[in-house]
């Protein structure tokens, strides 16, 4: 048998050089309430999710709304690797080597009308496959959203894999959003619908606890959560805490928020 040698690929312009979080931690420590509230629940319970066949509906303010099979959708774009920091609103963070394609490519392909100003993402709603949805912990299905210009930023990403492997169910298979400059809950998992809208979408956590979770949810060490400071974070696998950086260190997005009061629009 030939030993498999994984040659380190050259880092791309969007990749962090920081040490990648152990795969085991990335796949056993998850917030995915559709499969339970404990961090270990998604890894235990997400086996019931059927990720093929899987269709994604692209509708709203687009010239030709359609529903497309995921494998077809994936074939439209070359897959890329992105090593991103992920900062959870709870005060911990990871470094995850995603595989997928830029959200901007998908949006352009969807061909929005001139009226489109926001992108709304909807996750699967099926209590049969997602046992956590049998309890009204959140207003199911999970909904997230971005402003259109945020969605078109080259950092915004749709992931279908981690570390060259197909996305594990507990990490949001088969298709999830990754917005590395925002708190993790913005990066909606198991997406079935992408809707271009005129109005700001009403997103799940902003509805559940409006004083704690806003629409923007940009990582910001200056704006504390009502129950804890956001100034520092615990990097999973590391001792101690490290300072949290504005926009999770992705300062290239700052232009998107010129003139916006980040304290009020948290």
């Amino acid at each position, binding site marked *: 048998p030939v030993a498999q040698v994984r040659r380190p690929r050259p880092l791309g312009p969007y990749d962090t050089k920081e040490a990648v979080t152990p795969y085991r931690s990335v796949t056993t420590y998850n917030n995915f*309430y559709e499969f339970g509230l404990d961090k*270990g629940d998604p890894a235990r319970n997400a086996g019931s999710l059927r990720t093929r066949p899987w269709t994604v509906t692209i509708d709203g303010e687009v010239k030709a709304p359609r529903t497309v099979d995921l494998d077809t959708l994936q074939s439209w774009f070359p897959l890329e690797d992105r090593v991103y920091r992920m900062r959870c609103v709870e005060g911990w963070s990871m470094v995850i080597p995603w595989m997928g394609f830029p959200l901007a490519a998908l949006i352009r392909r969807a061909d929005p009308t001139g009226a489109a100003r926001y992108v709304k993402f909807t996750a699967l709603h099926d209590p049969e496959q997602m046992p956590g949805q049998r309890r009204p912990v959140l207003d199911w299905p999970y909904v997230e959203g971005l402003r259109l210009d945020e969605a078109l930023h080259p950092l915004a990403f749709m992931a279908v894999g981690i570390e060259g492997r197909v996305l594990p169910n507990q990490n949001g298979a088969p298709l999830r959003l990754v917005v590395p400059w925002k708190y993790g809950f913005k990066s909606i998992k198991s997406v079935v619908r992408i809707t271009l809208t005129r109005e700001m979408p009403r997103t799940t956590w902003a509805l559940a606890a409006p004083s704690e979770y806003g629409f923007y949810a940009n990582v910001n060490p200056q704006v504390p959560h009502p129950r804890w400071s956001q100034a520092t974070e615990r990097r*999973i696998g590391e001792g101690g*805490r490290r300072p949290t950086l504005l926009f999770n260190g992705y300062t290239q997005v700052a232009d998107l928020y010129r003139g916006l009061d980040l304290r009020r629009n948290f």
Partner: protein
Amino acid sequence: MRRPGRSAPLSWLVPAVWTGGALPAVILVWDALTGALGANPVQRATLQSGLLTLALLLLSLACTPLRLLTGWTWPARIRRALGLLAFGYGTLHFLIYLYDHGFTLGVMQEDVLERPFVTAGFLALLLLLPLALTSTPASVRRLGFRTWTRLHRLAYAAAALGALHYFWGVKQDRTAPLVWAAVLLGLLLLRWYRPSRPMS
């Protein structure tokens, strides 16, 4: 029913409570050393020590209602151990929190002053401190039974603050904190409805 030739009845009871009560701490340390606390061991240890504090505090508060309802006297004998164990786990919980923030007192000060969730937990532990310090029979004699009893009613306030701390601490599903709060309320009601019985 004391049989001759035997030592005090249930003489094993208090040591058993201490042993059983210390066991979760031993398991917690063991799990921490062997990496069994998962990807975020500090968060896990914080949660577990907090839950143990609340559980032991409620058990200590259950002793008197249990004695009044059943007439058994043994609950009164384990109340002190349960209360001190609760204080011990509360202290451990606090130390883990301080460790999590690198023992930077500035962070603690900001948390205690600005975040009601932390304020409640901090006050709960603070209220337990004088109770732990006056837990000995000698303290009962020194303070006088009446004063001592009134002082130790602070345990209810500490438990209520602890339950509130837990309620404010969870992100979305508040079922578990509400169950704890309901148990506490039940214990309080049991005390209020049986005031005529002589105390201790």
